């Protein structure tokens, strides 16, 4: 079981995708149910994985890479099928399977067009994302990285709303990411020629180009370009608002919830361990871009009028914390003895932010879906007074929005707390600039989202037709969330509250991983 569980988790969706291909496209209900049921298997396995890893490794105080499987794959290239998971990837695997299952469940009710294609692509996407989190071989990593790209391209292009320019957005997303991929491929080749293998762990042991800063920097930036486009870090972020506005709800959820994390994961799994000296040399640039992302992203949010665009820009701002945390940790390499714990806390902040942003922003995009399916608009000026009409929706949105603004007691807070704790020690001035983002986040969440959509008097003239999702009839007043929408949100809200009150279990994973990363540098 141990060595096969990751393979099972990763490839079950792929097998299901192939089976879906052989189904008749008229059997829509069957396809939907089958996809949902199959996706429960990797979810269950990833829960087992988390519990097992916690009991066997974390509870006994040893972390480290586990569930490894290494089989020769392309012997001529010395590339192997090498997978494994540690404290960093286990929670992210769980995040991926959870958001995927919720997306299948939600899309089962909301996707009406080309159902077979949608579920096929989505299952393929799940395999691609999971593969990135388990791969320990560069070739494998690269293959999974690209597998994730293609289905998302189609999801945006085909199921996007025509008025949101889906083709433009899809191509922009595809080409932008591809630029990064090409850069990454070249850097992978450079590592291969130096190390003689495609093994990621081996590369991290050897730390190639450690004595040649120029070459190391070039390889470092090649990787960083790929990952920073994916994160996305300022100034490579403009594909994100376009992709989000065009993507269908579940696509946005996965895009924000998981795909953005792939970039940050790559930085922590590959760049930081393999190029510590180059990273340290360029750390301040990363820190600066992170802080600019936080503050600039938050300011741009305030001026948005489209709800989905606003949340997309909030991702730019929130992922800035990830960059700040990782950058601060790299800057701390100057004196590991002095900054050890601060570096660990900065990485903990970054990783917590990755997980929490997945839960919270994933939730926010579901909630945008809830309102968009009813109103067929996302224009913030068209709404108002919904808290009186849709109290359940209001309550769920309040929890999610406040989690997003980092309210203590909800999940988002601890990520900001530890990011700033680490950053204030290592890169004090930049961290001090970054806190401006905290104020602006409150401004756009409360002023633009809560106040425009929910407060004030409901004005029936602004939107005269609301779709009632029970039977898709037109009503004059909005209806509250339906059972399937509530069920979709429950697990996410539960995590926001639980991790806000008691972040210890999740930090047990991330902290162990962070300590190990720092030790090996």
């Amino acid at each position, binding site marked *: 079981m141990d060595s096969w569980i990751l393979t099972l988790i990763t490839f079950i969706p792929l097998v299901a995708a192939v089976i879906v291909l052989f189904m008749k496209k008229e059997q829509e209900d069957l396809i939907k149910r089958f996809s949902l049921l199959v996706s429960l298997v990797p979810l269950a396995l990833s829960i087992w994985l988390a519990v097992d890893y916690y009991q066997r490794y974390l509870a006994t105080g040893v972390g480290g890479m586990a569930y490894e499987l290494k089989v020769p794959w392309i012997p001529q290239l010395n590339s192997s099928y090498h997978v494994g998971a540690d404290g960093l990837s286990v929670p992210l695997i769980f995040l991926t399977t959870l958001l995927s299952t919720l997306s299948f469940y939600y899309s089962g009710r909301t996707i009406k067009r080309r159902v077979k294609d949608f579920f096929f692509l989505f299952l393929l996407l799940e395999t691609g994302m999971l593969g990135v989190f388990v791969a320990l071989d560069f070739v494998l990593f690269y293959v999974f990285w690209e597998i994730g790209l293609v289905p998302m391209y189609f999801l945006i292009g085909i199921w996007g709303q025509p008025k949101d320019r889906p083709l433009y957005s899809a191509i922009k997303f595809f080409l932008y990411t591809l630029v990064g991929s090409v850069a990454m491929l070249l850097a992978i080749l450079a590592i291969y020629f130096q190390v003689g293998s495609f093994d990621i762990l081996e590369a991290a042991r050897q730390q190639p180009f450690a004595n040649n800063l120029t070459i190391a920097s070039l390889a470092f930036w090649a990787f960083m370009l790929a990952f920073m486009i994916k994160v996305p870090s300022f100034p490579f972020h403009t594909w994100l608002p376009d992709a989000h506005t065009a993507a269908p709800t579940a696509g946005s959820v996965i895009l924000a919830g998981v795909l953005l994390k792939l970039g940050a994961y790559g930085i922590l799994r590959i760049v930081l361990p393999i190029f510590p000296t180059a990273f340290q040399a360029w750390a301040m640039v990363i820190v600066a871009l992170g802080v600019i992302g936080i503050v600039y992203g938050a300011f741009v949010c305030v001026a948005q009028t489209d709800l989905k665009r606003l949340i997309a820009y909030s991702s730019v701002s929130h992922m800035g914390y990830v960059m700040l945390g990782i950058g601060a940790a790299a800057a701390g390499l100057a004196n590991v003895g002095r900054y050890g714990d601060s570096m660990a806390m900065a990485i903990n902040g970054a990783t917590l932010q990755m997980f929490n942003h997945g839960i919270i922003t994933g939730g926010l995009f579901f909630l945008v879906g809830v309102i968009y399916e009813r109103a067929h608009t996302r224009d913030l000026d068209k709404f108002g007074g919904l808290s009186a009409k849709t109290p359940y929706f209001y309550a769920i949105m309040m929890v999610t929005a406040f989690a997003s603004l980092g309210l*203590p007691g909800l999940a988002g807070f601890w990520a900001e707390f530890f990011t700033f704790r680490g950053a204030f020690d290592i890169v004090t001035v930049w961290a001090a600039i970054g806190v401006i983002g905290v104020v602006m986040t409150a401004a756009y969440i409360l002023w633009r989202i809560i106040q425009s959509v929910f407060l004030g008097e409901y004005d029936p003239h602004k939107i005269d037709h609301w779709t009632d999702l029970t039977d898709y009839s037109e009503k004059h007043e909005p209806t509250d969330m339906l059972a399937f929408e509530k069920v979709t949100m429950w697990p996410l809200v539960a995590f926001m509250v639980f991790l806000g009150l008691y972040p210890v279990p999740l930090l047990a994973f991330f902290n162990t991983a962070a*300590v190990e990363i720092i030790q090996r540098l």
Partner: protein
Amino acid sequence: MELLIVLIPLLPFLGFVGITLFTKHNKRLSAGLAIALMAASWIASWIVIFRAFATEHFEKHPFHVPLFAIPTGKSVLELGFVVDNLTAAMLFMVPFVCLMIFWYSWGYMGIGLPAGEHDRRGWPAESGHVDPLASRFFAYISLFATGMLGLVLSDNLVTLFVFWEVMGLCSYLLIGFWFARKYDDPKRITPKQAGLKAFLTTRIGDTIMLAGMMLLYASAAVLTDNQAGLTFSKLFEPQVLEGLQRMSVPVFGSMATLTAILIFWGSIGKSSQWPLHVWLPDAMEGPTPVSALIHAATMVSAGVYLIIRMFPLMLAGVQPALTFLGFIGAFTALFAAVIAVAQNDIKRVLAYSTISQLGYMFAALGIGAYVAATFHLLTHAFFKALLFLSSGSVIHGMEHGEHHVHHEGHHEVHGFDANDMRFMGGLRHKQPWTFIAFVAGGLALSGFPIVTAGFWSKDEILAEAWYGLTHGDKGAGLALFVFILLVLAAFLTAFYTWRQISMTFLGKPRTESAAHAHESSWSMVAPLLILAVFAIFGGFIGVPENFPVLGPLLNNPFHHWIGHFAETLKIKAEVHPFNPIPLLFSVVVALGGLGVSHLIYGRAGKGWQTHDQLDPLEAAMQRVGLGWLYEAMRRKFYFDELYAATVVAFGKGLAKAAAWFDRTVVDGIVNGVGRMGVGVARAAAEFDVVVVDGLVNATAVVAGWAGGLLRLIQTGRVQTYLLVAMMTVFMLLALFMFYL
């Protein structure tokens, strides 16, 4: 014992959860649940503090409850609850005041009354009906109580901050409780805007505080090999404080001073001190129990509690930090009192009064009067909660009168507002119990000598300032400043309080509504009378030991309780000899303020005659050419306008500029690069067709590639230049590496 301590904040939290998940559709049950659990929390608190009183040398053996430890690298961040002398003093006040206000809310929200036919969610209910969202109200105030109780129990800055922000959330939700409410006057701030303003203004302070916490956390970690965390007892170890003092930073000299000042900004926001004072008066848009609970007795005084808690750090921050504290406090105390004189909204007068009294406490802390500040915090909570609840009762009575007038088919005078004191008058006959309660609270606020709680606590602050002035060395200048400003503020406090009582209760009714007002229900009046007892007699626990006759008799238990605790933290809390001079000052200004006010506003038949007349003080000031000053006071010295024109406009402008920059420049570059890529591809295709006919293999690749791109671009613009450029660079790089 540990369980009992955890239950104190947990019980109201269960109320919040229970109402939201289970009982929200039954308003009576929801309110009952909230009140019952709050009562249980109050009983648990008082059991805990009576055990604390019974413990010998409690200051050395506080009750401690570890909660959990968060892994932070190789160290851990420990979080827990503690009950020490200071917390015990707060636990005496907080749950009791909460319970009184919960009880009062039963009547205020109209629990048990029928639902109004025309009542809409997000609007106040018509008089005599239950609020349509009453369950939500009780859920919110229960969550709030959790926040405040958790805050005073925290043994560390992290959970303190968590609960601090939970309260901020509840404050936001409750200020905007009537989220749909709009006024005829478009310039008047609505509840939803007031809530936003409150949250964002305090958020500025909180963020600065967060920065201070982070610096403190990181610096203390260096000094203790990552062992300190943010636990108070560990932060206040002498070697940590001394280390912080030695750690030099570019601003303010030492790390101790810097962190002390940054953390104080949290209090400036939360306690609505100048220059972040603008939110509290507008927070009065919330229901009145909320104003009493959150914006008078508990949350705003949590800012003071934070500084009391962090006082060893403030002391380590030496003069820069303490002077800052004293300056902001004393300035705000006077500044807000001046504004309060010219306000006509009954709750806004009290709001400015709260700002002013909190300023007193900060000023007291600035001159080192630790015990006096704590004492004033407690007495103020009782009498200010009382005043707010009484004003709520007044407003309820006025709304009833207005309802009656409408019912009779009459129209109320133009611009009528149930909160506006100009439309009141003569209510002492209609609301005798409320009148008694308001006068008790008002006299306590004014510092009416000997028989009110406010007198003892305020007098102690003035005595401490006088002592600092006459005995201090380095702090004498600050003590003088504080003393003068606080004496002036005390005079104005008495003045505006009696103005308020005169306008509201004395004279004759100035509108039909006031003439038809009636006393509120018992569930509202009974808590008033209980709080009135505390507002009068609460001060006797803190009568200075050397005060003639009363001192030896009462033995000042409060000073002993807090003083012993202060000594364990190396805070000076010695008992000063009795000095009649500051006493004389406080008696004269209190009686003088009341007297002058009575001459202007209170004399029967003079003062206020009609609802639309000029304020007698304004008329007097106009006569001597100071009309502009009164106008400035009435307009709150234009701070709202100033901030709207600067900070808010700047923020919005910057947001617009950033959005434009992102769309035009950043994305413009991306699209431009895409277009260049298309151009390169086209050129390559041309080149391929015309020139490179012979090089079949090579051109096939390029043509295919370019053609592919061309096909792509027909649907939109493409970003290929980057691709081309990067590929070229990296291919060159790869070649370069091969030959290294």
